[in-house]
């Protein structure tokens, strides 16, 4: 097994550190002693099978979940043991793009994007509106402030959610399956936006995805989770040369030999 923390300290400053993180839901072990260091300005892509714990890992980073054992640090501050109230000043430094966008149904697009700004600053409504327009323009959607989330397509929802995630100019953006459910051209729009935000805002990013073309395009580093542990940690180039059969089958989108055999056996029975 590869420890993603083994490369720690070799590059830029660590923005996030996970140390020996364990998580289980009832009998199901999801994370089993995960070590991870995210360096400033880097885009880390987490890949793995469905149910391998990618989203759970992401939720530990923003402390939506607490580890059963282990520690989570944001810069040098330990955050896994903080109360919700103590997390309030830290949370605006994170941006999170949810898999289902998670736009508030009862608010317009403008209100959604302006929500974190209104919540954490004392800016006037006019100033908030200006920020909203700027952020929506960054994702190519200025002018739709008065629309409701229900009136948007899946891709537009993701882009509005992204505008909301960057409204407070966070230093760390986490993307949970950003291209899932989108057609290839729209998925590529999201990929381009991830690259653009990295370029323009110099943010640190973590992208959880199944989409290998997206992973190869946006990632500076790719790690693969399997049964609660990292089995690969390297560059997009090195994953293409990796000879681990589990990594290979995922990268090539191929069913594993055991699963294939089991399917054939069941078919014959």
């Amino acid at each position: 097994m590869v420890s993603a923390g083994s490369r720690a300290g070799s590059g830029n400053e660590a923005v996030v550190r996970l140390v020996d993180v364990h998580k289980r839901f009832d009998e199901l072990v999801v994370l089993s002693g995960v070590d991870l260091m995210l360096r400033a300005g880097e885009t880390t892509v987490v890949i793995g099978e469905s149910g391998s714990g990618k989203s759970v890992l992401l939720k530990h980073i923003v402390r939506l979940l607490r580890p059963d054992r282990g520690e989570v640090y944001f810069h040098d501050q330990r955050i896994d043991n903080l109360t919700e109230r103590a997390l309030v000043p830290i949370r605006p430094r994170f941006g999170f793009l949810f898999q289902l966008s998670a736009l508030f149904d009862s608010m317009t697009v403008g209100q959604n994007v302006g929500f974190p700004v209104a919540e954490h600053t004392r800016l006037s409504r006019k100033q908030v509106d200006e920020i909203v327009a700027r952020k929506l323009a960054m994702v190519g959607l200025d002018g739709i402030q008065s629309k409701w989330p229900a009136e948007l397509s899946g891709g537009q929802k993701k882009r509005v959610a992204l505008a909301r995630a960057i409204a407070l100019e966070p230093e760390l953006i986490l993307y949970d399956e950003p291209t899932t459910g989108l057609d290839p051209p729209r998925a590529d729009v999201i990929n381009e936006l991830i690259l653009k935000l990295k370029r323009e805002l110099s943010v640190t990013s973590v992208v959880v995805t199944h989409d290998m073309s997206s992973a190869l395009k946006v990632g500076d580093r790719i790690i693969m989770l399997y049964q609660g542990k990292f089995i690969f940690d390297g560059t997009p180039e090195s994953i293409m040369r990796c000879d681990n059969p589990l990594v290979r089958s995922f990268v090539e989108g191929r069913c594993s030999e055991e699963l294939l055999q089991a399917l054939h056996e069941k078919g014959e029975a």
Partner: protein
Amino acid sequence: MISALGGRTIASVSAMGQLSLFVWQMLRWLVVGVPQWRTWRRTMPLFYEVGNRTLPVILVTGTFVGLVLAVQSYDQLRAAGFEQRMGVLLSITLVQELGPVLAGVMLAGRVGGALTAELGTMRVTEQIAALQVMGADPIRQLVVPRFLACLLLAPLLTFFCDVAGSLAGWFVAVRLKGIPSGPYWYYIRDAIETWDVGVGFAKSLVFGAAIAIIACYKGFTCRTGAEGVGQACTESFVISFIVILMTDFFLGTFLSGLYRGIYGFKSLV
């Protein structure tokens, strides 16, 4: 069997602990939020929602309960020679018991279920997690305004239920049965004390608070998927209904004992 029993006991204790923590957090945010204008700005639309959804059905229910009570009690009271005091029986029953209970049940059915569905859907679509990630406490944002709306509107809705029932009773007594209007109102004024109105008011406050807490808690803790939300709505109504009836019994017993202790026995005839 012992293991299953133990498991259930642990689950029940754990659920009670979770609920207590939820209520504690809500009360803390309530104390912080009540003096703040933004809390009331979030609550105003809910006043309309709760009132608008519940008032028509409460007026209809109150009216028919008043009509039925009057029709059913008239013959018995007439046989005993107390028909002119029919208004007293109706008013005491409505003000102390049926008004708060009916308003509570209607509130639980019309509003409690809707609140659970709304919050449950927000949880399933990760909108509650999005609030948390943005450093906005979901209990402060979502639960406190809904609690305030239910708590403050329950007595008002009870008042409308009492008025509708009393007018319906008057209609049967005076218009249909020929009881003189003067004595009808005289005996009511003579028998109904501030205490009786206070009992109804106290009960309705407790019911409003219980409905809001149960509905919001069920929404916040519902299982994922449409089935999870549906089940949470059903449980929310059933639990609210049982809690209303049980609380009514215990509060009624306690308050009537308290009345006897302070003022002695009160005869209505």
